[in-house]
């Protein structure tokens, strides 16, 4: 009789435990149906992945405030300290294994010269306001999009000239050198209150291609522009309706890759190429439509181009390769990386050099 009671009690306890477990299971089952779209936490570091194909030369890229090198099919972290801000927009220094990069802090950004291993060789600019005026944040400056020309001249966008009695803060294109004055020569005069002139890319003949912003009829537009002489009106190569920017001329100077958003309702972009003849752009050809493509960069040998595109629901920007973009029949785009999350505002920098020593993969 007693053992029967005990058995019954054990059965009841077991049933209650099972019910509790069932309730917990239902709770966890629903939780497991959550959408996994936490982009910042669900991406891998590049060094934990391998690209789908081996690209020639060396690519420098930025993700999560860190700089990475992609060479010979392997990513290498440049291990730059991120305590002072986020690293972005790497640019290789022609003929060397050093790179230039932007270190962005909350109120300013500076250009740094780094070794191939990511060690800071030198800070090139001093855009932070002095400590005694730290609350006057408008005295700080921004510098972005460094890019070297074939003669070693450095080009970048800089928010000077700036008048602290005005709300206008606009980028202009500047040039300088690593060894002399960094902001030596202002090349462009931006349209005020538009954001200005950005993304300079020097060409073999010394001209500088860049994106110029303009505002009319209540809308902001970007034009591809070509500066042939400092502070003169640049040649405008595209129309406001096309709304194109992020231009990159091919190594042979015959074609321009660009990102256009005209007619997309500002929710997507197109990757286009157009022939360049003198200071005129020919009829553009759309290579990828209805995408979130950005930052196209030609391979040093012109065999194709890489670009970023957001390919999954999380909005991760991955690296893509488009072979034969100079030809009339380019290959289908190929996704190079997966589960990464590149900084889409940091165009890749593609050096033809491959002889960088591989360390600590």
């Amino acid at each position: 009789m007693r053992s029967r009671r005990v058995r019954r009690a054990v059965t009841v306890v077991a049933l209650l435990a099972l019910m509790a477990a069932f309730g917990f299971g239902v709770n966890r089952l629903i939780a497991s149906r959550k959408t996994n779209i936490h982009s910042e936490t669900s991406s891998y570091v590049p060094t934990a992945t391998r690209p789908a194909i081996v690209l020639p030369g060396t690519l420098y890229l930025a993700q999560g405030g860190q700089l990475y090198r992609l060479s010979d099919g392997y990513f290498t972290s440049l291990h730059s300290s991120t305590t002072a801000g986020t690293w972005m927009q790497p640019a290789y220094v022609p003929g060397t294994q050093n790179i230039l990069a932007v270190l962005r802090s909350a109120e300013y950004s500076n250009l740094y010269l780094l070794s191939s291993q990511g060690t800071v060789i030198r800070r090139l600019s001093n855009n932070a306001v002095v400590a005694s005026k730290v609350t006057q944040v408008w005295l700080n400056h921004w510098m972005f999009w460094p890019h070297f020309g074939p003669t070693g001249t450095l080009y970048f966008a800089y928010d000077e000239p700036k008048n602290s009695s005005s709300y206008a803060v606009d980028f202009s294109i500047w040039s300088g050198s690593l060894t002399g004055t960094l902001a030596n020569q202002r090349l462009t005069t931006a349209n005020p209150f538009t954001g200005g002139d950005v993304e300079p890319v020097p060409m073999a003949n010394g001209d500088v291609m860049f994106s110029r912003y303009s505002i009319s009829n209540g809308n902001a537009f970007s034009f591809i522009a070509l500066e042939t002489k400092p502070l003169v009106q640049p040649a405008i190569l595209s129309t406001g309706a096309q709304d194109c920017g992020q231009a990159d001329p091919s190594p042979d100077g015959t074609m321009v890759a660009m990102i256009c958003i005209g007619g997309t309702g500002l929710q997507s972009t197109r990757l286009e190429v157009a022939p360049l003849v003198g200071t005129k752009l020919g009829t553009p050809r759309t290579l990828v439509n209805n995408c979130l493509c950005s930052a196209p960069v030609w391979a040093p040998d012109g065999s194709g181009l890489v670009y970023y595109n957001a390919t999954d629901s999380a909005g991760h920007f991955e690296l893509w390769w488009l072979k034969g973009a100079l030809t009339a029949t380019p290959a289908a785009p190929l996704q190079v990386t997966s589960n990464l999350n590149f900084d889409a505002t940091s165009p890749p920098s593609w050096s033809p050099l491959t002889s960088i020593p591989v360390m600590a993969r």
Partner: protein
Amino acid sequence: MLLGFLIAFGFVLSGAVGAVAYFMPAIVTAFQDTGHSITRITPAATARASASASASAAATQPPSVAPPPGAPFTVLLLGSDNDAKFGGTVLTQSMILARVNPTTRHVVMESIPRDLWVPLASGGSAKIDAAYLHGGASGAVATVEEDFHIHIDHYAWIGLLGLVNLIDQVGGIDVVATNPVMDDYYPADISGTNPYAYERVAVLPGPQHMNGIQALEYVRSRHGDLRSDFGRSQRQQQVLLALRAKAKLLGIADLPDIATAMANDFSTDMSISQIASLLPIASSVQLQNVQQVILAPPYTSNLQIDNQDALAPNWNLILPETHKYFPAV
């Protein structure tokens, strides 16, 4: 037989408890933040309030009848500061009228400039962003209804932190930044200890992934933009559409996290069932079926009044344009 029923009931009950426990944050938020009623202020009361400049004098009428299911309806979307420097009283930084047609899946969004100088339902004239300051959501709804001669069925208010948390909760949004958005006088009222301090903003142009703070900077900054508030209105609509694209991916299991993120920073007069019926509509609206209206010049013109920079409405243009999409009353 009875024992079997009891055991089955026990399992059903425990499963229900498990589910309710999971959805508890959403349930709490739903009861706290939804179903707020709009107190509709009558024109007569407005006149009296005008004389006394007091919203408290306003007489009220019962809330209007909700539109039948499937019928087009109008929502006033309000976004505002909710930081310390206003001592609990806040201005709206964003006012967007949205007309939703559930049958055709067509949406029109019309941004109302915050500096528009209008008669307020609570009395007197001021910038329209003060309508919320003086009368809360009811004051904002009544002011827009009276000035634009339309009927508003519902409102939804979200605070700055609510927007930041919502965007972070959905894993950020992908936005094609229209131009470099530069601002040296952006209010540092979210992150810093001094709500009157400034910080610098530089949103670089082109496609990019934005977290909540970055998206807030993009939609809130206006000093470096030639269009000032109009540029910001366009960016606000753009971010709303980007958020809609991300929301399409969410499922019911995501509700508790979303609710927790927005707790205390969201309120609406819509009921839980009305919000639930809206979600499938929001996710099925195609981008080409979303029409965006910005009341830039010539709908408005610059105005200096009471030592303030404001915008004078050109009602002869605004009302016909508005009534193309929002039925006149």
